[in-house]
């Protein structure tokens, strides 16, 4: 396993479409639930413990078993009630595959897999293990939304990165838990949900004016 390879994959500057997604933050900012650093911190903790855990578990499982992508894809479908979130996840999976095809030799992964499944398959092709795939997924769950918070709320970028540093041990913990289930049947993988993210995404998709794709 190459640590530098993991950094390349998890780099926020990887051109994999993430910059256009707020990770569910934009609708919560608009609703007034997230206003400043403290509420961003709560939002990120909640996201990490729910959809972050699911993303990490599926990335780890897809990394351990990259040939089972279709099965994991369905597993994420049934864990994602919001059609808008399913669409956003598939768009980011497609974008990640586009970037990764120029970086490593990928197996067939379908046209538009869910992002965590694409991440697992890409991590495997890059020679990374299930734990590294899970770390990248957990970190990506919070770093994308944190970047959106800087842009949407005009927050101090140092303060937001301080937040990400404090969340790093939580990302490690979530990833370690996710990696333990990398060999489990898809129905036994975590299924934590965050209903406000689903509701927010559905409302957001109907807006005439929005800055982020999701």
């Amino acid at each position, binding site marked *: 396993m190459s640590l530098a390879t993991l950094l390349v994959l998890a780099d926020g*500057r990887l*051109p*994999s*479409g*993430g*910059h*256009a*997604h*707020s990770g569910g933050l934009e609708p919560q900012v608009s609703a007034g639930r997230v206003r400043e650093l403290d509420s961003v911190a709560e939002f990120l903790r909640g996201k990490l413990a729910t959809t972050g855990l699911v993303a990490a578990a599926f990335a780890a499982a897809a990394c351990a078993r990259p040939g089972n992508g279709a099965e994991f894809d369905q597993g994420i479908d049934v864990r994602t009630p919001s059609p808008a979130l399913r669409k956003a996840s598939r*768009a980011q999976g*497609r*974008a990640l595959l*586009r*970037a990764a095809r120029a970086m490593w030799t990928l197996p067939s992964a379908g046209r538009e897999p869910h992002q965590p499944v694409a991440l697992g398959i890409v991590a495997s092709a890059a020679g990374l293990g299930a734990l590294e795939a899970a770390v990248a997924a957990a970190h990506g769950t919070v770093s994308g939304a944190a970047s*959106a918070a800087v*842009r*949407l709320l005009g927050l101090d970028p140092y303060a937001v990165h301080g937040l990400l540093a404090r969340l790093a041990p939580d990302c490690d913990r979530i990833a370690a838990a996710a990696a333990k289930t990398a060999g489990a049947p898809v129905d036994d993988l975590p299924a934590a949900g965050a209903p406000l993210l689903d509701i927010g995404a559905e409302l957001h998709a109907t*807006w*005439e*004016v*929005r*800055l*982020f*794709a999701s």
Partner: protein
Amino acid sequence: MPAEPHAAPHTHEPDEVPHTHPDPGVDPHAPLAAGARALRVGIGGPVGSGKTALVAALCRALGDELRLAVVTNDIYTTEDADFLLRNGVLPADRIRAVETGCCPHTAIRDDISANLDAVEDLEAALGPLDLVLVESGGDNLTATFSKGLIDRQIFVVDVAGGDKVPRKGGPGVTAADLLVINKIDLAPLVSADLTVMDRDARARRGELPTVFLSLVQDRAASPVADWIRGLVAARVPAA
């Protein structure tokens, strides 16, 4: 008589050797290879310089002769796409809007995935196309398109933004394949000196062409449409 480079402003003496200035009808690049995919032309420029109006004019001018589609990158989701629809210049299935997450320059330069997806989806849905126009969100003078996204790019500035804009330079002004100085009908109202803009554009751009445009006077954006016709015609057949 071969054209000479005009890297610096100059005046013409009565007895000088005849020479030509850069001709917007002549593309200084090697012809693009023709392939299965459409020619992709990026249209960038500052907020309010008239990018969407130019795209609408090009759709009117070229829509009947080329198989055409448009991708818009307005920061507010569908504003530009809606403008094109309201003006009836293209059917809805030929326009895609891309959201850019507050970063229009990122979506056309650093992370082009959403735009590439939109272009590919248009070609998949509509069949082979001759031309896809990719309109950037309004940005600043440093915004340029990635060559991974487009084949050629147009940069649009307007006289109301100040006649110093060409002198200020920036990658859009200096390196775009075509510079459009727009809204020249407003020049007297904003005290913009077109000869200054012309001189500065030549100094900044060397051989690259610049055209002056007023969509009030020329609703078909003729010099820009002709430039694009030339690009399409010059595409060499695939080997």
